[in-house]
């Protein structure tokens, strides 16, 4: 990463347009809103991480001697709710997406800037309700709020937590709506659909899921509230309801929600792999259609979460076959990233380290997903640590690695500062090692039959559990390092050049950090996307 020359750094940029709290809380600048989201989700990530630490600490010994079983139930529930609804779902779209989509399409802002700010406030309000549930004593239903436990039996604070998830869903819908309209209506002259970066394509696909899927989970939560408060028979069999209906409605959203978490990550990885391989993405159009295919197919597979729920075996068979189909566009992504690197001028900068980590970990997460989509295997390992390991490989090994790749790649654009190369590479390595040490043993534990959501376990599982807990400590250090050096960089880091990676793309055509309205003059696009030919050399530190 190169540092700025004396003329490269803009004295007037979006960060210098007011430093008061009011200037941030009332901003309609998409870049500032992206930063607000980044700070907010970081707090939720920290909280969710603390609960994860509690879980791993408890599981270091087989006896269940650290906390009461009820407390343990609340810890894993709060970990899931905070990490999924308040960190992973908004992580890349609301921070990097907000910051970069207008920049990458040559627009001055998103289509509805005030709605954008409103979505952040709605997110914060939703978060407050969930925190209220947390400080009141927490929830013990699991993040899935399965009925009839969540409606009739649970004595924990289900309503405020569910209300928090319900409210924050609107934030997600508004962000998705804003992105769809922005991408349709505000592209710079000459920027046709097949000149869009894959980051934009993946956010478009993600936004479609957010708009089409989120209302269903919102309605489902309202029905849970109605049943819990008014004792209406919707999910309760004793008054004519069906608990499995909840699972259908819940997973209709929550399986596609996995793609809300991973598709933006795929967009980040595409940008990073192209830049650090100095090559156009291999099979660009296939990559664009692959994200759309994943988004659409993702709506047809939810029943694979319900193979042991009394769901009909015929429906299960259909869902199982459809689940296999998602592997096709997912594999297209992995093969094409690899093919892009082939014969490319690959450099091993920090974002690329995370991207390589993503490709490997996502592949393991994806392939074990195919295993779980097979009914016979799923019945054996359902609700075991095999499932826990699988979805952490996708969500943590995939989504969070991509988030970190993106943060490191665009940090010079966001902050206009450099970060320490040694420490950032070390952190990437620590995260990769810590992650595998935490979650690979869980595949073995699950396959041997250790169920999830129990605070005690047989003694023969202790070695693998201790390895996992030790890995979590390493992983925690890996996550803490970027927080420290990026915060330091933001305030005290050296100024960097406008385009330190020598990357192509409209976001690098403007200054780093960009001015409030992004471009002095709206650019006209004439070239192709990822035009690294003739090769642009990265500027040397």
């Amino acid at each position, binding site marked *: 990463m190169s540092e700025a020359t004396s003329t490269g750094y803009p004295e007037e940029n979006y960060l210098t347009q007011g430093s008061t709290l009011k200037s941030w809380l009332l901003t309609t600048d998409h870049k500032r809103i992206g930063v607000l989201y980044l700070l907010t989700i970081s707090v939720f990530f920290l909280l969710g991480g603390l609960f994860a630490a509690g879980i791993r600490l408890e599981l270091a010994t087989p006896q269940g001697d650290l906390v009461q079983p009820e407390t343990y139930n609340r810890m894993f529930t709060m970990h899931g709710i905070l990490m999924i609804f308040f960190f992973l779902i908004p992580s890349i779209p609301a921070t990097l997406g907000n910051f970069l989509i207008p920049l990458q399409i040559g627009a001055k802002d998103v289509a509805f800037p005030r709605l954008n700010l409103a979505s952040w406030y709605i997110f914060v309000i939703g978060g407050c309700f969930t925190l209220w549930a947390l400080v009141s004593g927490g929830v013990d239903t699991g993040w899935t709020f399965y009925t009839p436990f969540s409606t009739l039996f649970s004595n924990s604070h289900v309503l405020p937590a569910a209300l928090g998830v319900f409210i924050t869903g609107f934030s997600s819908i508004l962000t998705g709506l804003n992105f769809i309209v922005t991408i*349709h209506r505000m592209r710079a002259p000459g920027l046709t659909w097949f000149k869009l970066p894959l980051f934009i394509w993946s956010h478009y696909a993600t936004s479609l899921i957010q708009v*089409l*899927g989120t209302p269903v989970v919102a309605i489902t939560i309202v029905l849970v509230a109605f049943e819990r408060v008014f004792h209406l028979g919707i999910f309760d069999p004793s008054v004519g309801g069906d608990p499995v209906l909840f699972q*259908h409605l819940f997973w*209709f959203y929550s399986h596609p929600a996995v793609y809300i978490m991973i598709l933006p990550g795929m967009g980040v990885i595409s940008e990073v792999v192209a830049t650090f391989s100095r090559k156009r993405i291999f099979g660009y159009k296939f990559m664009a259609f692959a994200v759309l295919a994943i988004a659409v197919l993702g*709506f047809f597979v939810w*029943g694979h979460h319900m193979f042991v729920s*009394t769901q*009909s075996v*015929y429906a299960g068979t259909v869902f199982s076959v459809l689940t296999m189909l998602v592997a096709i566009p997912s594999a297209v992504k992995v093969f094409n990233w690899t093919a892009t690197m082939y014969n490319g001028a690959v450099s091993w900068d920090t974002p690329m380290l995370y991207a390589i980590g993503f490709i490997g970990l996502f592949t393991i997460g994806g392939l074990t997903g195919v295993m779980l989509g097979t009914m016979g295997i799923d019945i054996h390992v359902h609700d075991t640590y095999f499932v826990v390991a699988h979805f952490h490989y996708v969500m943590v090994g995939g989504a969070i690695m991509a988030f970190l790749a993106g943060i490191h790649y665009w940090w010079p654009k966001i902050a206009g500062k450099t970060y320490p190369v040694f420490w950032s590479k070390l952190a990437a390595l620590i995260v990769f090692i810590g992650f595998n040490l935490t979650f690979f043993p869980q595949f073995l534990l699950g396959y041997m039959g250790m169920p999830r959501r129990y605070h005690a376990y047989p003694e023969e599982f202790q070695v693998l559990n201790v390895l996992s807990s030790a890995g979590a400590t390493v992983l925690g250090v890996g996550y803490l390092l970027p927080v420290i050096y990026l915060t330091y960089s933001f305030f005290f880091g050296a100024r960097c050049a406008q385009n330190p990676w020598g990357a192509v793309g409209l976001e690098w055509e403007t200054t780093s950090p960009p001015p409030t309205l992004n471009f002095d003059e709206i650019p006209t696009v004439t070239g192709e996307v990822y035009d690294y030919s003739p090769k642009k050399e990265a500027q040397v530190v």
Partner: protein
Amino acid sequence: MSVHVSPTSTYVKVFLTLILLTATTVWVAFYDFGILNNVIALGIAFAKATVVVLFFMHVKWSSPLIKLIAGAGVVWLVILILFTLGDYLTRTIHYTAPPI
């Protein structure tokens, strides 16, 4: 892009149609049509939603893209219902393996 402005009479007609359909819902609730009970109730609800979407929300006069987005919402609802029913309607069918 020109914006369609509906006359007030359109909204009055929409209002009266919705009231009429609501009254129909209440009226049919007093009769037992057996298996058709839900079909009739949902049919009336669907008709009401269609009136709101087409006339009150101006989709009838909107661009093809808006119509596509609105249509996609309906298609996605159909996916939800179809695959959920795919479970419920086949639960009682038991598969017996043929003798080897």
